[in-house]
C-alpha cells in the first residue's frame, strides 16, 4: 500500500534533514502509529504521503505509484483516495458542517444528492447528525475534529492519514476520536496516525513506528515500542 525507499527530506536553510534515509513499508488495512517527539519528522512523513511535499531523495510509492512522478492532475486524483486529518482541523469556519464535508465529494464531481446522502451518513457515524447545518465556528474543538474526520472518511479513502488528531482534545474527546479511527481501520482502511501522545500507544497490537531526528528508531508492535522507550528513558 505504502512504500518508502531511502527517503530523505531536507528543507532549505535547515541544519539537519527532516527525514533521513527512511525505509518503511505499510501494508493494506494496517493501523500504524508514527511516534516521536516534536521535530522527529512525523508530520513531514505524512506531508510526503499526501503529496504536500516532495522527497529530496528516495522514493515514496503509494498504491503502486511513485508520487514524485505524478502530474498535477494525477496528484489531485491520488489525494482523492487519501483522507487527511490535521491537528488544527483545517476546516472553513464560515461554512456549515455539511458544506465542509461536502467539499471533499464536490471535487470528485458527485451529484448534489449523492453528496448530501453520503455526508449525512458519515455525520451519523461520527455522531454529529444534529449539527449538520451549524457553522463550524459554533462547534467545540472535539466536534470540529470529528467533522475533520468525517470529511476524511466521506470519500471512503484507501488511506487515512492523521497528524496529531488528538493534540487539541481532552482525554475523553481523544478517546472518541481514536474510536472513529479504529472503526475506519476495522472497515479496511489503512490508518497512519502521527502522534506524540503516549496515551495513544497503549493499544497493544498496533504497530508503532518511532521516529527520532528524521530516522526510524523503532518499528514494532506497541508493547515492544513501549518497552524500548522505557529502556531509552532509563538510559
Amino acid at each position: 500500500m505504502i512504500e518508502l525507499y531511502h527517503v530523505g527530506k531536507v528543507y532549505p536553510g535547515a541544519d539537519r534533514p527532516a527525514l533521513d534515509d527512511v525505509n518503511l513499508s505499510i501494508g493494506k488495512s494496517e493501523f500504524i502509529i508514527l511516534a516521536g517527539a516534536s521535530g522527529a519528522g512525523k508530520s513531514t512523513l505524512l506531508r510526503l504521503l499526501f503529496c504536500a511535499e516532495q522527497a529530496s531523495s528516495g522514493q515514496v510509492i503509494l498504491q503502486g505509484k511513485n508520487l514524485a512522478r505524478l502530474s498535477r492532475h494525477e496528484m489531485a486524483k491520488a489525494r482523492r483516495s487519501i483522507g487527511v486529518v490535521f491537528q488544527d482541523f483545517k476546516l472553513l469556519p464560515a461554512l456549515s458542517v455539511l458544506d465542509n464535508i461536502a467539499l471533499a465529494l464536490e471535487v470528485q464531481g458527485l451529484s448534489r444528492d449523492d453528496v448530501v446522502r453520503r455526508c449525512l451518513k458519515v455525520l451519523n457515524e461520527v455522531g454529529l447528525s444534529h449539527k449538520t447545518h451549524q457553522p463550524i465556528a459554533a462547534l467545540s474543538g472535539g466536534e470540529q475534529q470529528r467533522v475533520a474526520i468525517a470529511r476524511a472518511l466521506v470519500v471512503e479513502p484507501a488511506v487515512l492519514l492523521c497528524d496529531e488528531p488528538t493534540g487539541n482534545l481532552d482525554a475523553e474527546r481523544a478517546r472518541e476520536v481514536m474510536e472513529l479511527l479504529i472503526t475506519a481501520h476495522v472497515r479496511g482502511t489503512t490508518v497512519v496516525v502521527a502522534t506524540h501522545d503516549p496515551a495513544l500507544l497503549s493499544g497493544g497490537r498496533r504497530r508503532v513506528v518511532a521516529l527520532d531526528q528524521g530516522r526510524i528508531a523503532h518499528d514494532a508492535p506497541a508493547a515492544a515500542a513501549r518497552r524500548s522507550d522505557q529502556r531509552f528513558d532509563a538510559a
Partner: protein
Amino acid sequence: MIGALSASVVKHGWRSVRSGGLPFFFAVLMTALGMFSLTAFGTVLWNFRALARAVGESVAAVAFLKVDDAAAAEETRARIQLTPGVESATLMTPEEALQRARRGLSGSAALQASAGLTMPWVVEVVPRFSLEDGESARLELVQRIGALDGVDEVLHPGGELKRIDALLRLLHGAGLFLAVLIVLVVVVVVSNAVRLTVLVRKDEIAIQKLVGASDAFVALPLLLSGVVQGTLGAVIALVTSGIAHASLARVVRVALSGALGTFTLDPLPWWILACVIVGGALLGAVGALLSVARFLRTSS
C-alpha cells in the same frame, strides 16, 4: 458528472464573487467606465460614418463630353453608366449645363464674365460611394471615365472627401488606441481584483487542493468571478450609454441638422452592443486567467 461539477463551479464562483468585496466593486466600476468610453466613442464614430456617407453620396463628378449631337452624348452617357463604380449618370444638354454653372456662380464676379460662355454636353456622374474606398479608388474611377471615347475631361471635387477620409482615419486610429488602452486597464484591474479574491480565499483553496481538487476545479470559479465582473461592467456601461444617448440625441439633432438634411444621432446597432457585453466578459476572463495561472504556477 459534468453537470455536478458545473453546479460546484457556480457555487464556488458565487462565493468568489461574494468574497470579492471592494476590489470586485472597483473592478466592475473600472470596466464600466472603460466600456462606457468605448461605447460613447463608438457611437460618435458610427454616426460620423453615416454623416460621411451622406456627404460622399452627395458629391458628384462632372464629365465634359466632346460630342456634337444628342445621340452621341446619350451613347457616351450609357457607356459611363456601365462603368464599374458608377451609381448614376445623368445627361445634361449644353444649355442645362450652362444654367447649372450660372447658378453655381450666382452673385460672383465670375458670373459677369460668363456672358457668351458655351458649355459642351455634360454627364453628371454619381460614384457608388463606399467609406472603405480610399481616394485612390475615386481617382481610378475618374481616370476610367476620362479614358472613355467621347469624354473630354472629368472634374471631381474631391476636397471634402479627402477631409472626410483623413478625419475617419484619425478617428479609427484614436478608437484603436482607446480600445487598446481600455483593454489593458480592464485586464489589469480585473486581474488584481481576482488576485485579491485568491488571497482572501487562500485557505479555502488550500483545503480544496488538500481534498483532491484539480486545477480546473480551483480555477473555474475564479474565472467565473472575472467573467461576472467584466459582464457586469459592460452591462452598466451599456445602460449608462443608453441614458446618455436618450438625453443627448435631440440636442445633437437640432445642432447638426442642416444643408444635408436631418441628422439623427443613431444608437449603436444591437450586434455592436452584444459585442460590448461579450468583450466585457472576455476581458474579465482574461484578467482572471492571468491571476489564476500565476497562482496555480506557484501553488502545489
